[in-house]
């Protein structure tokens, strides 16, 4: 149970993913499973693809067709609950928010971790973006079989 573990169950995770055929283009995946008073994802979205509505306690709803995968919501979400993903050939390419040090190097091979922080495979860091608001975003490519499991990278600080 999410409320006991802090980790979403596979069924819940699937419910926030669009059909994988749609993911030939990058799309936002919004892992906001709980009604909390918050709407910066909606405000940040330049195409109006994310709707929270007048009651900011409502969960955000994504219009997958309108989402361009621009990543603005990734760093705007105060809960760091949004990432962008696409499938490119046999790779799943993720852009995730990251607020730890050290940041990985672009091109580096890193461990990819699941929602419990456990390493589940490796990935290649394609892009590290530093933003003015100090939440970085990291784009990494990993095996497409990890589409529903991968959420972050593990960077050795040695």
């Amino acid at each position, binding site marked *: 149970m999410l409320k006991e573990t802090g980790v979403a169950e596979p069924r819940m995770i699937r419910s926030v993913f669009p059909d994988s055929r749609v993911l030939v283009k990058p799309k936002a995946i919004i892992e906001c499973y709980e009604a909390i008073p918050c709407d910066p994802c909606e405000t940040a979205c330049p195409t109006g693809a994310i709707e929270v509505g007048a009651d900011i306690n409502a969960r955000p709803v994504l219009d997958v067709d309108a989402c361009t995968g621009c990543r603005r919501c990734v760093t705007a979400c105060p809960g760091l609950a949004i990432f962008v993903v696409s499938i490119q050939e046999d790779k799943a390419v993720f852009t995730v928010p990251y*607020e*730890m*040090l050290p940041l990985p190097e672009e091109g580096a091979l890193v461990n990819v971790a699941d929602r419990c922080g456990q390493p589940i495979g490796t990935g290649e860091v394609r892009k590290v973006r530093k933003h003015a608001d*100090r939440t*970085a975003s990291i784009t990494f490519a990993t095996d497409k079989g990890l589409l529903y499991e991968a959420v972050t990278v593990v960077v050795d600080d040695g």
Partner: protein
Amino acid sequence: MRIREHPILRFKERSKIAFTFDGRTLYGEAGDTIAGALHANGVKELSRSLHLHRPRGFYCAIGNCASCHMTVDGEANVRTCITPLKAGMVVKTQQGKGRVDGY
């Protein structure tokens, strides 16, 4: 114990400030509180409980709980968690409740 690198914050090295703690010369940085400077020097025990003399440390950081009371420049019951460190301060572990005259 000082944080030099942080993903969100910038902690620049600031000018060093010398003070004494129970007779030892220690160094803090400009902008430290007294308790913060002691912590940075690895001093976690700030006072002793009145009856059982158990060690007490930094607890609330808002000047509310009395766990960090020390004698500073002769003044007893200084809330070291909110009092800025100044050069040359004489900081002592306080014995008992402290008196207005500093003893």
